């Protein structure tokens, strides 16, 4: 029963996550950007614009210019999250690639960094009056959810080690459509349930910034409006009607 519940939960969460994100990306891609609006100085070529976006994704370049503390905690959080996710690949890959084995210890340090960065970001949200002013309940909940996932993960590691062979069998089973029993440790179940919630709310929340950053016209457009004529489909129709 437990195994089935979690299996269904994860299938649903994964479906919502993937379909939700794809739907958003398609919607963004299909919505025309009628005018050239890169924030200048901007690269004049497509390749240059791609590098600019890559810099935003990997290094948070604008945020770095903007606010060193938010940059530090925000970047630390995201890199730590990436490492932790990569560490978890061992539950999904058989055989485990050597590099995944190699990063295992870093994944653990990263989990601490992740929790620390989240606490720091939350403290900012609570203590600085202008950030408190803009915060919504969902902003706090997103932090709480991520922190709870990180802390339950650390607690499993340190206080209630679970049968990781069985956990791996469960996830491999999910992927092979051949369900295997999930250990019934309360911490593990909490951890997994929270992860499923995170996956499911992702496409409906501000976590969408992960997709949005790729589609931001002020960052991804090359600066070439004098050299090329860009006309959105609806604007072209307008022009035709006029004549």
């Amino acid at each position, binding site marked *: 029963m437990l195994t089935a519940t979690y299996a269904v939960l994860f299938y649903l969460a994964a479906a919502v996550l993937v379909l939700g994100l794809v739907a958003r990306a398609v*919607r*963004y891609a299909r*919505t*025309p*950007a*009628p*005018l*050239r*609006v890169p*924030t*200048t*100085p*901007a690269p*004049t070529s497509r390749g*240059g614009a791609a590098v600019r976006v890559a810099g*935003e994704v990997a290094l*948070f370049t*604008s*945020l770095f*210019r*903007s*606010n060193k503390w938010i940059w530090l905690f*925000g970047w630390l959080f995201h890199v730590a999250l990436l490492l932790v996710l990569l560490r978890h690949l061992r539950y999904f890959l058989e055989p485990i690639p050597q590099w995944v084995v190699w990063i295992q210890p870093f994944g653990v340090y990263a989990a601490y960094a992740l929790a620390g960065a989240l606490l720091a970001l939350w403290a*900012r*949200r609570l203590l600085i*009056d*202008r*950030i408190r*002013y*803009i*915060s*919504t*309940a*969902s*902003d706090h*909940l997103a932090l709480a959810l991520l922190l709870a996932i990180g802390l339950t993960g650390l607690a499993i590691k340190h206080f209630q080690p679970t049968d990781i062979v069985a956990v791996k069998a469960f996830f491999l089973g999910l992927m092979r459509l051949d369900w295997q029993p999930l250990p019934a440790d309360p911490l593990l179940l909490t951890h997994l349930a929270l992860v499923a919630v995170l996956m499911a709310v992702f496409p*409906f*929340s*501000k976590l*969408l*910034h992960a997709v*949005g*950053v790729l*589609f*931001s*016209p*002020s*960052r991804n457009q090359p*600066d070439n*409006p*004098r*050299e*090329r*004529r*860009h*006309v*959105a489909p*609806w*604007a072209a129709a*307008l022009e035709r009607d006029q004549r």
Partner: protein
Amino acid sequence: MSQDAFDAPPLSQRPEGLEVPSARPGRSAESRSHRAGAEHQEALGFPSDIPDDWQDRALARMEELLARNRSLRVYLDACVHCGACADKCHFYLGTGDPRNMPVGRQDLMRDVYRRHFTPAGRSFPALVRGRELTWDVLEEWFTYFHQCTQCRRCSVFCPYGIDTAEISMAAREILDATGLGQKYTNEIIGKVHKVGNNLGLPKPALEDTVEGLEEDLKDETGHDIRIPVDEVGADVLLITPSADFFAEPHVDGLMGYAKVFHQAGLSWTLSSYASEAANFAMFMGSYEHMKRIAERIRKAALDLEVKRIVVGECGHAWRVAYSFWNTLAGIGQGADADDEYARALQDQLDRRYPVPQHICEMTRDLVERGAIELDPEANAHHGGVTFHDSCNVARASRMGGYAGGQLEIPRQLLRASVPHFHEMADGTTGDATFCCGGGGGLLTDEVMELRVRGAYPRASALGEVMERQGVQKMAAICAICKTQFAKVLPYYGIPRETVISLHELVGNAVRLDRTEA
């Protein structure tokens, strides 16, 4: 509001690291633009009164805009409320009203977007602070979306490039559709549509004015420097903000352009049909009205059979010209072979020059080619000079063939025209420049307190460089900046004459020794 109803904040001694005020909700709520009357609404095809179904209309308009403008949708979704933009807006720094934090301003629309257009907001409004679009909310929109100069400084610093200007433009479109237009902007757009310029200056008045200016030029220089109007077959069509025809210090800039044209021996003309570079339709986000205004310029260029189009000193006008003209009216290069509409003009124009070209690009090229010579000593009496980057030039356009030319080319001209050039503090120039506080359709007296407070970061940087380096003049290349500074700097104890047109300095420095043909 009278001159004495408020005090300007004391200038900061540390303009590179201004103190961030703590949030004081409602601090700036009293600075409200006047509503457009029926006449000004109707002239633009907007409802003249508030229709009964205003809420449906507003939401319908919003849905339309979400479907036709990617920035709006992405920007409303992507914000993580990190607060990195909060202290980047001159209006927040000057007023402390949290609705003047870029994210606070965006949230006015985002909260409504969540409530009406997202599953999370429809089902759990309290969780994501979804807000019903009530009349009070719409009134708040009117107030605070008309406290944004659309300067894009926030966009530079946001990790996702979220540009509050895009959101305030969309908000104003929605307000217009519900009958809540802003008087200043809408009235002016009506004039351009009708007469061809923001002032409503008809052709005879324009001709009179430039005749007077030609006489002034003769008296000043002894040369017959012309300011031609409607000369068919001239090489260059100059499109300049109409403020250049009469306002101070703008008009000295216009005379500067005339000196450059004269000395370089270029044949040029103004157009009485398109006697305005400004395009206030950008401020209210209207593609249709922006296009209509841009098309006057296309028509003038075709009718006058010119080879080049040059744009005078104006920030938002240069943004529209550089970034949007090609899209809106085919004024540019690179249109497809089957794009007859754009080709009609593009095939007429000389491909060797960028279309459109900024007056600073043109003058810089003339200097580089040796067609004109500049003597900085001619401006020695001005003492030190600094330069104010206009937002729309710095963050929404380009000059020259490379990224950042819009920051360098005006400086190259200044350095060649004045003996002592000094930069203002780091973090207040280039693409991080602080707005003058009067752009985006806010150059109207009823929001004077806001305008003064919005100028606080720039005034602080200017005051500091005046003290530190003995600077006496601040050159600008924007008609709105010039008007705004001349008006608000005195509130900070800085003389209004401090602001000067870049081309006034260039004009003083040009050696006028061309032998008349």
